């Protein structure tokens, strides 16, 4: 239990998707103009990461890993399908996003209208594919660990985008040098936020 909690906290602060690995930067820069929209996108990312990482974990464990097909037939023990993982993961992500979109539309129209256009955008957000690939690389032992990693990364991404959106709302009133306006200053602020987040590196989990 403690292990699971550690992974959760670690993936929010220490291994933050944005500040430590620069994942999901495209939508991070494009959608962070106001706090309201970035909250919507952030929640959608938590949602999708929390679903795709465990699903990809199961697939990796039972289909793709070397020797994973043993449960089908003991003769398949040395089959290694891991070279297929990119294409399988991206297909799962694209179809999961579609599925989540349909389910949310059916059962919670209010949430659907607030997530709106963000759900389909998420299929090409590198944070989502990155979550699955990191899960594969770090070899989490149980489904619970993989799930808490997925959710934690989502929360970390959420914090990052809401933070930058709040700063960008304020910076509109400052006198930034003209060539640096917009994109340039956002990069530099993100760098400074990353330096602040590095203080969490000292935490031993």
């Amino acid at each position: 239990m403690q292990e699971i909690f550690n992974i959760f906290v670690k993936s929010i602060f220490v291994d933050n998707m944005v500040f430590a690995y620069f994942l999901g930067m495209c939508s991070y820069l494009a959608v962070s103009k106001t706090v309201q929209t970035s909250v919507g996108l952030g929640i959608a990312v938590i949602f999708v990461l929390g679903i795709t990482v465990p699903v990809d974990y199961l697939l990796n464990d039972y289909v793709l890993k070397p020797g994973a097909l043993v449960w089908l037939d003991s003769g398949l023990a040395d089959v290694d399908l891991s070279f297929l993982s990119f294409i399988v993961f991206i297909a799962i992500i694209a179809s999961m996003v579609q599925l989540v979109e349909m389910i949310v539309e059916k059962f919670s129209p209010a949430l659907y209208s607030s997530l709106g256009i963000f759900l389909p955008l998420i299929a090409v957000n590198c944070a989502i594919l990155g979550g699955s690939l990191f899960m594969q690389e770090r070899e989490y032992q149980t489904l619970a660990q993989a799930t808490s990693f997925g959710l934690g990364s989502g929360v970390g991404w959420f914090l990052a985008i809401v933070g930058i959106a709040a700063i960008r709302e304020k910076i509109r009133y400052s006198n930034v040098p003209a060539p640096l306006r917009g994109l340039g200053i956002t990069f530099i602020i993100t760098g400074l936020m990353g330096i602040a987040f590095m203080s969490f590196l000292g935490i031993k989990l």
Partner: protein
Amino acid sequence: MSTAKQEKEPLFSPKNKKLLTSPINLNNPITVQVLGICSALAVTAKLKPAFVMAVSVVVVTALANVIISMLRNGIPPRIRIIVQLVVIAALVILVDQVLKAFVYDVSKQLSVFVGLIITNCIIMGRLEAFAMGNKVWPSLLDGIGNGLGYGLILLIVGFVRELFGSGTLWGYNVIPAGAFEIGYMNNGFMILPPMALIIVGIIIWIQRSKNPELFEEN
């Protein structure tokens, strides 16, 4: 289509040349179009992985552009995203296997970022914006141009970070030993992830102050 229109354009007509060169500066995918930042920053602590990444992206953008441009009339618009993703994913698997076979150590350093070329928005963006509506040859040039524009920024960032962070370039020492004796120190901060962002911020600053038409509102 009338036959008069099909008159053959020379391979490197001014229009085609522009396709190749404009993404390198005025229409740079990273600093102007803001695409594909994710992988650009994570692999640039050293020059060598940055170079390998840049070459991989040039190959994938160029080939994906060519393939999609050949298929463009046969792809039903509703499922084009899936088709594009499958083409890109297949190419990235090829690149990944080649890297594992020939430069295993770099491939280990790049870790998940080779896979993340799939969701690199430059590639999707070029397919969607260019290859879906243009012939094969211009698409190839556009792909190579955008890949090079991306690679250029990667190499600049990698150069600065490795030179000031480790005092080496491509793994060779370039700062003379005498400099360390009189008190020069490597700036360990350059190796850390946030500095990549700040360096790109500065590149944008320099580029825009030279090209005032790129200024943005806050």
